[in-house]
């Protein structure tokens, strides 16, 4: 079994690292980016195997995850633009990674709930190439990402890998620290701040007991967390012209978006929300925005089209959520020509306000239609977040206060990429309760309580990145005489 753990993790690590390194990613967080990108790539390839009804053994998925990036590197190498690898650091890191994997296997920490067994069931069917037997309702609810993560365990007669989720959690905290550091480097901060604040950010995440619980839980929350952070943080750094190759950030975005779509049922919707600031920002080339819209649209369309066919083949009517998401995918693809229009360029940023207002209005409308669901959900969320029922301790309250304080006191133009996913999450999450016709409930295992974790790293990044920002204009007392003098000197 430990061999399967080692082989799986190294395939993901090597594949992802070679890919992002080829596209220019460097620095101390390279293996963390490589690991998460490798997982995203594996999820995409596994999803394709399922959709096009190809043999679904994880051996093939892992081979492709490793070989495709190597082929990309060889192609660039032949063109003379591929970077060379440094053997010694790679070897030292490999030894450390092997020790970590073996250690995690030895301690065998794992959290299982009924959801975990459902993921195991789909993973087992994937490994035995019998995906046609998977119930469409099970695929709709549990999707593919988590089963694909654990499917290799079946090669050793097990259902779960012990090391993959804890390592993913560790990689998420490393990526968070790296995003913080790169964001601070583009502001006016000294070297001490550049190192201390990112370390604090990572520690704040690792000190969160619900994050630690999920780091050992066979479920998709940590994966979802990592992918959302990659998309939001990557687009923020891209827009803020940080000293990172934009090809590397684009590569990460292209891998993370489809993986997020098949990570959870609401993945497509949330990917669209997180990418909305990208679509309307002129800091991104139109071609890149169009490609991202195409990737998002086709991922949603293909996955939900597959589910629709699956329901039809089983003689069942596809749920409205599947049909709705399918048409949303079509809409995302149809939206591409508008990205090129002048009209869109002129009014683009107003779409963000419009989207946020629309979400709140939709929530208000559904709350009026189903007041009981709304009241019970809000009550449960308050109990979970503020009264300790959600296993968060005080961490969410403290983070919420920090987030609100930073939002009011500081101001930077590019922080919309981090602020928007967090502030839209509240109406979005509460709307989901109405879409599923089931109120949220009190307790740590309530869906919304667990979903809050998805935006926690982005909220921490938002707070820490404020150290490189300026104070909000309205809050700075401006003496008229000095201000005028300053203007004169600046001219």
């Amino acid at each position, binding site marked *: 079994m430990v061999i399967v753990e080692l082989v799986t993790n190294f395939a993901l690590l090597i594949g992802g690292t070679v890919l992002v390194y080829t596209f220019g990613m460097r620095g101390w967080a390279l293996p963390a980016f490589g690991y998460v990108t490798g997982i995203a790539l594996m999820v995409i390839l596994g999803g394709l195997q399922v959709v096009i009804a190809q043999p679904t053994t994880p051996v093939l998925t892992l081979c492709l995850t490793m070989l495709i990036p190597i082929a990309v590197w060889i192609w660039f190498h032949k063109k003379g633009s591929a970077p060379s690898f440094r053997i010694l650091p790679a070897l030292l890191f490999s030894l450390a990674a092997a020790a970590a994997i073996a250690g995690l296997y030895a*301690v*065998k*920490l*794992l*959290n*299982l*709930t*009924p*959801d975990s*067994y*459902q993921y*195991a*069931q789909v993973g*087992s*069917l994937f490994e*035995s190439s*019998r995906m046609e*037997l998977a*119930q469409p*309702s*099970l695929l709709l*609810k549990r999707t593919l990402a988590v089963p694909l993560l654990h499917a290799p365990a*079946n090669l050793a*007669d*097990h*259902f779960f890998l012990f090391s993959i989720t804890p390592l993913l959690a560790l990689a998420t905290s490393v990526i968070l620290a790296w995003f913080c550091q790169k964001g601070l480097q583009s502001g006016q*901060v000294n070297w001490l*701040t550049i190192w201390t*604040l990112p370390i*604090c*950010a990572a*520690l*704040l995440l690792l*000190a*969160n*007991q619900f994050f630690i*619980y999920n780091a*050992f839980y066979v479920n998709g929350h940590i994966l979802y967390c990592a992918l959302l952070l990659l998309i939001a943080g990557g687009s923020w750094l891209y827009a803020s012209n940080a000293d990172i190759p934009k090809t590397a950030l684009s590569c990460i975005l292209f891998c993370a978006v489809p993986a997020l779509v098949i990570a959870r049922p609401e993945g497509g919707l949330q990917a669209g929300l997180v990418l909305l600031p990208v679509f309307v920002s002129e800091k991104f080339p139109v071609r890149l925005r169009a490609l991202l819209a195409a990737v998002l649209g086709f991922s949603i369309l293909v996955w939900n089209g597959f589910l629709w066919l699956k329901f039809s083949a089983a003689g069942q009517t596809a749920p409205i959520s599947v049909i709705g998401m399918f048409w949303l995918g079509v809409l995302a693809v149809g939206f591409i020509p508008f990205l090129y229009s002048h009209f869109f360029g002129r009014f683009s940023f107003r779409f963000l306000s419009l989207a946020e207002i629309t979400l709140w209005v939709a929530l208000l409308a559904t709350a009026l239609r189903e007041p009981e669901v709304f009241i019970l959900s809000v009550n449960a969320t308050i109990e979970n977040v503020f009264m300790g029922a959600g*296993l968060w*301790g*005080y961490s969410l309250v*403290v*983070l919420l206060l*920090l987030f609100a304080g930073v939002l009011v006191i500081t101001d930077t133009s590019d922080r919309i990429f981090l602020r928007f996913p967090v502030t839209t999450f509240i109406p979005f999450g509460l709307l989901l309760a109405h879409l*599923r016709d*089931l109120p949220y409930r009190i*307790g*740590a*295992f309530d*869906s919304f309580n667990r979903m809050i974790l998805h935006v926690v790293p982005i909220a921490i990044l938002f*707070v*820490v990145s404020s*150290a490189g920002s300026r*104070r909000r204009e309205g809050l700075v007392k401006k003496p008229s*005489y*000095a201000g005028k*003098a*300053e203007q*004169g*000197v600046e001219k």
Partner: protein
Amino acid sequence: MGSNRGIEAVVDRNSKKNGHIGAGKSLLLGLLLLAIAINLVPFHFSGVQTRLTGYPAIIKLSNLGIRGKERIVHHMGLYLALGEKAPKVDLLLPEGCALDVAKLYGLGRARNISYEDYDPEAVFTEFDFSGHVVASFDANKRFGPGPFAIAIGEGSPETMMALKRNDTWYIVDISVLPSKNS
């Protein structure tokens, strides 16, 4: 004179501004450290299971080489290999549940399972469909001590799940639990 005053004012203001930035960062650092400390105060690994001695909790069906292998894979519902520490299985079913216990089709030793179309009444000592606890099964009595397995297959509700509570595994229809996980 006026221009000198202006420049001095700018220098003064810039130094104050830098001071504000420095103070702001120190404040943020302090707040972050405080937040970490607050996180750690109530910290406990609540819910994280300590070392899983009885693992694997589930074993794979298709590699068992048992009779009816294809059929089992085809209709795989739930299959558990239960650890030595939990030799007792309780089947929890709601009143009026449609699950037919006769559709439990695999029961025996983990990794050495024999497929048997057994008579459930001969296996389970208690048998009562009217209540919540339907049947209890003591593997030690039937197979002697050691890990054993149980499978629920064809015809079982999709929501049948295995739950471990107080060192006992329960096969339970989660759709009727008061706090259903979604």
